[in-house]
C-alpha cells in the first residue's frame, strides 16, 4: 500500500491533465509572510479544486451567472419603462426632452474610458505589474467620481427645475399630462439611481482590489478577483450604454442639435 501511495499521482485519476507541471502552490509567504489569496486561503489553487484552471473557470462561471441575474434586474426596469412609455407616450416624449443630452453623452464617454482603464489594469496584471494595476484602478475610480459629479450636476438641475417627484415637483407643468411626466421622471430616477448604486458598489470593489494589488497579492497567473470586479464594472458600463438611448435619445428626433428645451 505504501508503495502505491508513494507513486500515485496527486490529481484525481479522471481529471483532465492541463499541462505536465505540478499545480502551482502559493503559500503566500513568499514576500511578507501573509497569506496572499482572496479569501485568505493557505494555498492556490484552493484545496477543493483540481488545479488553477478549474478554480478560475469556477469563478468565471459564478460571476457570469450573477451577471445574468443582474441583467434580469435591469431588464425589469427597462420593461416597465417600455410599457409605460407606450401607454403615456406624450409625457415620456416631453420628459426625455427635459434631460441634459450633453451631460449624458459626456457621462457615457467617462464610463467607456473607465472600462478601458479596468482592461488596462487586467493587462498589467497579466504582465505582473502591481503598480500598473493600482495606477489604472485609481484612474478608473477617478473616472467613476467624475461620472458622479456630472450626474450630481444633472440631478441638481432637475431639482431646480422642479423635476424630482419626491422632493421638488412642479405640479402645474403640462396640465393633465403632468402625471405622465411624473411617471417618466420617477422611472428616470429609479433607473439611473439603480445604476448609480451599482457604480458605488463597483467603486468599493475596485478600491478593495486596488488595495490587494498594492499589497502585491496578484500574480500573472492569479488575478481572478481583479478580473471578476472588472467584469462587474464592464456590466455596469453596458447598462449605461442601454440607459442612454432609452432615457435620453429615442424621442429626440423632433429636436435639432443644440436646440434648447
Amino acid at each position, binding site marked *: 500500500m505504501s508503495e502505491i501511495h508513494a507513486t500515485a499521482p496527486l490529481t484525481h485519476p479522471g481529471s*483532465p491533465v*492541463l*499541462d505536465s507541471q505540478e499545480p502551482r502552490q502559493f503559500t503566500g509567504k513568499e514576500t511578507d509572510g501573509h497569506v496572499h489569496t482572496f479569501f485568505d486561503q493557505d494555498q492556490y489553487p484552493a484545496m477543493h479544486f483540481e*488545479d*488553477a*484552471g478549474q478554480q*478560475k*473557470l469556477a469563478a*468565471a*462561471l459564478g460571476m*457570469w*451567472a450573477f*451577471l*445574468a441575474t443582474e*441583467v*434580469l434586474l435591469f*431588464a*425589469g426596469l*427597462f*420593461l416597465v419603462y*417600455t*410599457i409605460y412609455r407606450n401607454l403615456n407616450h406624450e409625457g415620456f416624449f416631453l420628459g426625455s426632452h427635459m434631460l441634459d*443630452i450633453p451631460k449624458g*453623452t459626456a457621462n*457615457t*464617454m467617462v464610463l*467607456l474610458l473607465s*472600462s*478601458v482603464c*479596468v*482592461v*488596462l489594469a*487586467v*493587462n498589467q496584471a*497579466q*504582465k*505582473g505589474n502591481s503598480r500598473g494595476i493600482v495606477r489604472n484602478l485609481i484612474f478608473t475610480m477617478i473616472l467613476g467620481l467624475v461620472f458622479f459629479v456630472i450626474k450630481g450636476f444633472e440631478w441638481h438641475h432637475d431639482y431646480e427645475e422642479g423635476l424630482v417627484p419626491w422632493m421638488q415637483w412642479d405640479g402645474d407643468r403640462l396640465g393633465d399630462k403632468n402625471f405622465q411626466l411624473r411617471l417618466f421622471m420617477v422611472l428616470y430616477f429609479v433607473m439611473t439611481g439603480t445604476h448609480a448604486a451599482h457604480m458605488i458598489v463597483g467603486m468599493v470593489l475596485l478600491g478593495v482590489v486596488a488595495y490587494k494589488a498594492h499589497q502585491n497579492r496578484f*500574480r*500573472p*497567473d492569479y488575478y481572478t478577483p481583479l*478580473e471578476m470586479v*472588472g*467584469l462587474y464594472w*464592464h*456590466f455596469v*458600463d*453596458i447598462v449605461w*450604454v*442601454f440607459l*442612454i*438611448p432609452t432615457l435620453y*435619445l*429615442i*424621442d*429626440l*428626433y*423632433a*429636436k*435639432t*442639435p443644440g436646440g434648447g428645451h
Partner: protein
Amino acid sequence: MAHANDFPDADHGHVRAADSHHGHDPHDHGTGLYWIVFLALAGLMIATVLVSYINMGHFNVPVAYGIASLKAALILWFFMHLNRSTRLTQVFAFASFVWLGIFLIMTLGDYISRNMVPRAQAQTMIRKVDSYDVVSGSRHNKLDTVGPEEDLGVQERANTPGVTEHKNH
C-alpha cells in the same frame, strides 16, 4: 482562438505570456487593441447621439438599440474577454441574453396582444355587440366591452335597459 480543451487560459495563455514578456505569445495582447475598441465605442456613441436627431419613423428605436447592442457586443467580446474565454463561459454569458429575450418577448407579447382577438371571434363579438345597446364613442373599445365570460345570459340582460352602460363609464 481554438483551445484544445475547455479550460480557461490561465494555464495556457497567461502563464506563458508572463514567462515570455516580449509579446510572442498570441494571448499577450498589447494595449493597442483596447484603444481601437475604445475609439470604436466612442465613435458609435457620437453616432447614436447624432442619429437620434434624425426622424426615421419606425426605425428610431431599432437603430438606437441596434447601436447600443453593437457597443455592448464590443465590450462583452473584447473588454470582458469573451474572445479568449472558454466555450462554457461564453455559453453562460449568452444564456443571460436568452433569459432576457424570453422575459422581454413574452411580456411585451402579452401587452401588445391584449387588445387583439382572433378574427372569427372578433366578428362574432361585433355581431353580438351591435345587437345590444352599446353607447358608441365611449372611451372603451367595443371589443373590450364584451368578454367571452359575459356571453352567458346576455339575452335576459339585453332586454333590461341600461345594463350595458355601466361598462362604459
